[in-house]
């Protein structure tokens, strides 16, 4: 039975799927060499070497058992970004007012589409390329230091091939009130257009900021071709830093999205993330948080709503390295059609991480008998005074609740939609950013049958 998209071909590829990436590496490493320190050059070489050894992951690997990436390996790939074809009208729908907005198209930074805002003194928000030339001292200590490519083919590809991305630096004690919006627009072509955005967010001691990462597809190309984006975002929270992060993944169903999000928390820092996925055909989010200093807190929430033959895989790993840290994970999923979701949540409590309080919950709502969920929570605990809980559920709409709503005069479809919305609501309500929240609500009203009744009733 085909696991993923209908585009899975049983034909073996004529060439080694790694070959185009090797060629891209030659080009990128050459063009970037003079702008980056030697360490990055070496890192690129090591990473491409590692990718060549690893190849694309197969289902024989435990971490990829349920997610078949052959559609990516077998796609013919182009690195021709055609970024110029995207114009203001493709971007307008995704803009968030009153933010500091940076637009990348197929991984290429587009200053003329971006809208930078005035930010407090010392704050840096720029493309990564620009940051290497203007602030190498701020980038150098962090880039590539947290996201590990040794055992992850897509992180290896990104490390070897990234050309640009967004760099954010918030200096000690500064509170940035304007949200920083990183808008990645994909524009597909006959061959899948590959891009490897690399983002680095550094929040210095006692600083605060909000960052929104949005991944979308240019309207005009929603039915024309595919994209393959493998972003890596590293985020570092120095002691007592507070970062509020959102990820909105809403690409077209032709898109391949293989993202890694690496978070490093130092003492008493606080990180919150809401990851929303409703787009993409084959989507993987690896989210790794390392709680390295005492007293930090990480909240990693998410909502996925998929239909047709979409597949979304959220792979979480939380490392409790230091004592007295809290982590909370709540992921909810709504599946229709033949959609498939994977949730893998590993909590790793290191020796010495006493008084850890870790909670993980994954709840899934299946709206069709052909949708499928694999939920796999895992605890590994090497300390003896901790509290760790995990739970996962897969269920359908409650028949009694549907009856209750219908008994008040609400039609069956609308009743089911209301309950589906209600299922999503505790994630929706946790979204503090108004723009992201409005986008998610609008999506739900549009997607749910009789959404106008839902709009009226919530």
């Amino acid at each position: 039975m085909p696991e993923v998209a209908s585009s899975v071909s049983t034909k073996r590829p004529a060439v080694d799927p790694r070959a185009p990436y090797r060629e891209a590496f030659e080009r990128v490493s050459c063009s970037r060499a003079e702008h980056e320190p030697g360490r990055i050059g070496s890192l690129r070489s090591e990473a491409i070497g590692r990718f060549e050894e690893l190849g694309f992951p197969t289902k024989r690997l435990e971490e990829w058992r349920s997610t078949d990436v052959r559609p990516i390996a077998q796609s013919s790939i182009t690195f021709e970004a055609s970024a110029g074809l995207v114009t203001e009208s493709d971007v307008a729908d995704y803009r968030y007012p009153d933010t500091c907005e940076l637009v990348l198209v197929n991984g290429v930074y587009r200053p003329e589409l971006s809208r930078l805002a005035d930010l407090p003194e010392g704050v840096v928000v720029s493309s990564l390329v620009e940051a290497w030339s203007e602030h190498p001292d701020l980038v150098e200590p962090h880039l590539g230091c947290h996201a590990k490519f040794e055992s992850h083919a897509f992180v290896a590809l990104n490390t070897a091939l990234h050309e640009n991305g967004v760099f954010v630096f918030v200096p000690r004690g500064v509170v940035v009130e304007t949200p920083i919006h990183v808008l990645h627009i994909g524009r597909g072509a006959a061959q899948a257009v590959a891009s490897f955005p690399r983002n680095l967010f550094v929040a210095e001691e006692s600083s605060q900021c909000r960052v929104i990462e949005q991944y979308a597809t240019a309207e005009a190309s929603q039915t024309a071709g595919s994209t393959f984006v493998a972003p890596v975002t590293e985020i570092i929270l120095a002691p007592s830093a507070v970062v509020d992060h959102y990820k909105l993944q809403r690409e077209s169903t032709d898109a391949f999205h293989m993202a890694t999000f690496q978070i490093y928390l130092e003492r008493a820092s606080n990180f919150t993330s809401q990851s929303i996925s409703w787009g993409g055909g084959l989507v993987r989010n690896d989210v790794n948080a390392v709680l390295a200093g005492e007293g930090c807190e990480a909240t990693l929430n998410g909502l996925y709503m998929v239909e047709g033959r979409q597949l979304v895989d959220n792979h979480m790993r939380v490392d409790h390295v230091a004592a007295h840290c809290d982590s909370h994970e709540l992921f909810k999923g709504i599946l229709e059609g033949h959609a498939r979701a994977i949730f893998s949540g590993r909590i790793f409590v290191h020796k010495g991480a006493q008084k850890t309080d870790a909670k993980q919950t994954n709840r899934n709502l299946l709206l069709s008998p052909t949708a499928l969920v694999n939920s796999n929570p895992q605890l590994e605990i090497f300390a003896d005074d901790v509290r760790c809980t995990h739970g996962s559920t897969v269920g359908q709409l409650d028949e009694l609740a549907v009856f209750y709503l219908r008994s008040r005069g609400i039609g069956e479809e609308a009743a089911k939609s209301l309950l589906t919305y209600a299922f999503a609501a505790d994630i929706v309500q946790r979204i503090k950013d108004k723009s992201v929240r409005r986008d998610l609500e609008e999506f739900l009203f549009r997607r749910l049958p009789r959404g106008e009744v839902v709009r009226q009733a919530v």
Partner: protein
Amino acid sequence: MSLLEIKNLHVSVEDAEILNGVDLTVEKGQVHAIMGPNGSGKSTLAQVLAGRDTYEVTQGEILFKGEDLAEAAPEERAREGLFLAFQYPVEIPGVSNVYFLKAALNAIRKHRGQEEMDAMDFLNYVREKMSLVKMDEALLNRPVNEGFSGGEKKRNEIFHMAVLDPVLAVLDETDSGLDIDALKIVADGVNSLRSEGRAFLVITHYQRLLNYIVPDVVHVLVDGKIVRSGGKELALELEDKGYGWLEGKAKEQVAAHA
């Protein structure tokens, strides 16, 4: 034409017969009480009237305003003016009580060919109804029943009833679990809604509620059959004697039919 006519109603769930031949006629303006021991089929009758499809009507018919309800969906019954106050109201997190009611009321008004109510008119209308059940305004903006106490949930059911303005209201053990103050509030709410054009079917396990909502007719349901009907004094008799003496009667009736 009677408002509600139930004729020889037989209902099964997973092959177990729960109602076996219920006959009941309710006229506009009347209050009927249905009493009976646990497991006698009271709640089944309530849910079948509202159209829950986990129950199968195997025989007989239900006529509401002269129309056979057999094929009517729950929402169609509601729009025609039938209301069920649930024994266990369901919590719906994420859906606001007041907006939900607005959507429900507008669905009903649309069915009746009335214009949808705008936000201002609706709010005034709702405030008036809230005073009937002395409901705290804070409960309006909370999600439907979420975190409500038992008493608040029951009051919320009566509030929904007041807003949706049915012609037949079925109250399924709305009194159970209520302390005497909450019981009086619920009863006052119901009494204030009694009118020429509206009827109530009050299902209860205990006689106490009927001190406050005085019925025109009392029926006793035992083993899926109405074994006795009478005036309000029947309820007092049951309070004295319990149901035991009627349970024997049910068996006799079944034996006589066999």
